[in-house]
């Protein structure tokens, strides 16, 4: 745990301590004067860059509890600043402490704020001078009752109201907590030596001061008269056993005198960890449970902000390195596990390979692997199976010609491949069916010039071809006469067509069905 410098100041005394590993160290006390200031300066020099926590126990304090609407963000900030300005306009050390929300059902559940202020900074000035001179990070300035709230919380009072009473260097401190939250505190001088009635009973003096406080709580309506109040007195010297009997014997008032051992038990500490005086106990509480709200203005705690930023940067650096080491460690672990498994797998592979090679020695000699043999032979078989000649196409055409002796074949074109054209022209796919297709060029002979008759014969010839079972499609590509309305047609009825061979030429495209 980081070291802290803890300072407790009263009008008459100053106590300094270090907070290391959850305990106080180097606890020292001085009269509040030159000697204390010098000692504080020396302490700061011995422990540079150590956060300083200042706690004051003084009568120059002010507490105001206000119930304000529950708002958030900038609105809350503005509202609290406004309220602080109203309550403590010229006070340099002031703070706002949210102390919960109203519990009553049916209400708006407004926020309860405690406004605190240190009315004079004279007590602090020499110490702040040292802090600013040495640029020590000031963590905060706190009032002792703020620190007491941690103790009140740990003591877990059974009643809503608790009045914590302790004898401090500054006097008799009485702090009132409602539901464990500080509402008001009061410091009264308690110096029996200097008192003309010095021999007066200590318990009686406590009882008188407690009764005054109780009446103030009732009168100021901080505590309803019917509400139960527990007075918790720190009795480390075990000399207040008579106090409960001297308090008014009312049902709404209870009293607990807490021994040092009881306080240690409440704080979960051993008696050796805690100092046996209430002043030092509050220093310990300041180190362990620093209050969330400080009276110091932002410009005073600027160095502490930088200090925390530095610590944050160092912590982030450490976290980054730790993360990097852990992550890379995980990677290395995986890598080594992989390497180990690779060795194992390679050993298995070698064993299987040896087994295979031993068996393969008895194989018949082969030019390539068995799989390649099979693939090559299968591929050759497929190619042979695909092979076709124009024979079936020619037979189809020949069957058509048998019934049409006047059709004379001049030219025949045959193609075979997958898809619409030959394999050389287009990529053949394994799925596209291989088909035979072709074109025939023929003419009607003899041709007398009777185009109507010729066209009829060509149509019938195409139909005869189409009727054959192995024919998928027959289309007429060209007729002897162009019947297209958009084409120009020229000729003479006097022409001797017998002397013009080819006058009745035509073309047919034929596609045969794919063979399965």
């Amino acid at each position: 745990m980081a070291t802290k410098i803890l300072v407790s100041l009263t009008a008459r005394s100053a106590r300094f301590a270090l907070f290391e590993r959850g305990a106080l160290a180097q606890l020292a006390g001085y009269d509040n004067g030159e000697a204390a200031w010098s000692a504080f300066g020396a302490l700061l020099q011995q422990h540079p860059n150590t956060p300083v926590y200042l706690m004051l126990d003084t009568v120059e304090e002010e507490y105001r509890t206000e119930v304000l609407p529950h708002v958030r963000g900038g609105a809350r900030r503005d509202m609290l600043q406004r309220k602080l300005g109203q309550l403590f306009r010229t006070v340099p050390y002031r703070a706002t402490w949210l102390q919960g929300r109203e519990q009553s059902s049916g209400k708006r559940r407004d926020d309860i704020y405690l406004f605190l202020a240190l009315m004079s900074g004279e007590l602090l000035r020499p110490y702040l001078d040292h802090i600013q001179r040495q640029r020590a990070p000031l963590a905060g300035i706190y009032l002792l009752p703020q620190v007491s709230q941690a103790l009140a919380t740990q003591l877990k009072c059974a009643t809503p109201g608790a009045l914590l009473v302790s004898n401090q260097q500054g006097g008799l401190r009485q702090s009132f907590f409602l539901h464990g939250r500080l509402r008001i505190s009061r410091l009264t001088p308690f110096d029996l030596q200097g008192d003309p009635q010095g021999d007066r009973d200590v318990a009686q003096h406590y009882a008188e001061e407690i009764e005054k406080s109780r009446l103030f709580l009732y009168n100021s309506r901080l505590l309803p008269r019917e509400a139960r109040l527990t007075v918790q007195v720190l009795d480390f010297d075990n000399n207040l056993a008579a106090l409960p009997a001297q308090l008014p014997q009312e049902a709404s008032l209870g009293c607990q005198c807490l021994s040092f051992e009881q306080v240690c038990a409440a704080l979960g500490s051993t008696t050796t960890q805690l100092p046996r005086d209430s002043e030092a106990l509050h220093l310990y509480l300041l180190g362990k449970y620093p209050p969330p709200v400080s009276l110091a203005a932002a410009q005073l705690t600027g160095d502490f902000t930088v200090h925390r930023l530095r610590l944050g940067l160092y912590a982030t650096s450490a976290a980054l390195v730790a993360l990097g080491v852990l992550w890379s460690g995980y990677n290395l672990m995986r890598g080594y596990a992989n390497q180990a498994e690779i060795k194992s797998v390679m050993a298995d592979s070698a064993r299987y390979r040896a087994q295979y090679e031993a068996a393969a020695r008895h194989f018949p000699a082969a030019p390539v692997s068995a799989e390649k043999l099979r693939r090559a032979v299968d591929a050759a078989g497929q190619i042979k199976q695909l092979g076709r000649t124009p024979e079936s196409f020619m037979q189809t055409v020949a069957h058509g010609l048998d019934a049409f002796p006047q059709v004379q074949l001049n030219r025949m074109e045959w193609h075979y491949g997958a898809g619409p054209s030959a394999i050389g022209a287009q990529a053949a796919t394994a799925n596209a069916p291989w088909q035979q297709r072709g074109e025939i060029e023929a003419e009607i002979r003899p041709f007398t010039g009777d185009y109507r008759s010729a066209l009829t014969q060509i149509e019938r010839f195409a139909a005869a071809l189409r009727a054959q079972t192995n024919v998928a499609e027959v289309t007429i590509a060209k007729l002897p006469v162009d019947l297209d309305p958009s084409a120009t047609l020229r000729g003479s009825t006097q022409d001797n067509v017998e002397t013009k061979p080819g006058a009745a030429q035509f073309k047919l495209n034929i596609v045969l069905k794919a063979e399965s």
Partner: protein
Amino acid sequence: MKLSKLPWGILRAPLLLLAAAAALSVTLVYFSYQWSAASGAQLARERAALSGIRQKSAQVDQEKQLIERYRGPYEALQRGGAIGAEQRVNWLDALRAANQAVQTLGVDYQLSQQAASNLKLDTAGFKLQQTTMKINIKLLHEEDLQHFLRALDAQQAGLYLLQSCVLSRSAGGAFSVRFEPKLGAECELAWLSLVDAAQENVSGQ
């Protein structure tokens, strides 16, 4: 506290440390990850190899049967020139033999350069190469084309696919009893060769 008011001189050392820590972490993680990933990839390869050899070992009897069954046909294809480098001489011999068998009036031929075939067949481990041959045959009768193609097939000179044939009548004229071609056939066929891809790669290097 505003950024401009921060004492950067005081924060320089922790910021430099942070940068160094970030660089160190990134470096450590990067290189360890690379190494781990590389070993993971190697492990995957070794596992695949193990799986392959294990499967091969388990199928050793089946492999033996495959060799016994396919070795003969394979070697026959090799002898016929269907597997390995193309055998142009075989093809020309087959053309000549078919021509003699059918007694055509002459065959002209033209061979193109060998190129990868676009025929899609499952020939893993082999590349299918194709050489296109154009032949012009002078025929007395159209049936002579059938006879010629059958005779060419009977030569078993290799694997081929007939792609196209164009039969056309020769230019007419006065009746003649001379022994002259009445038809012309122009055919295109693709000679196909299976080339062992592994051997081709080795020879190519």
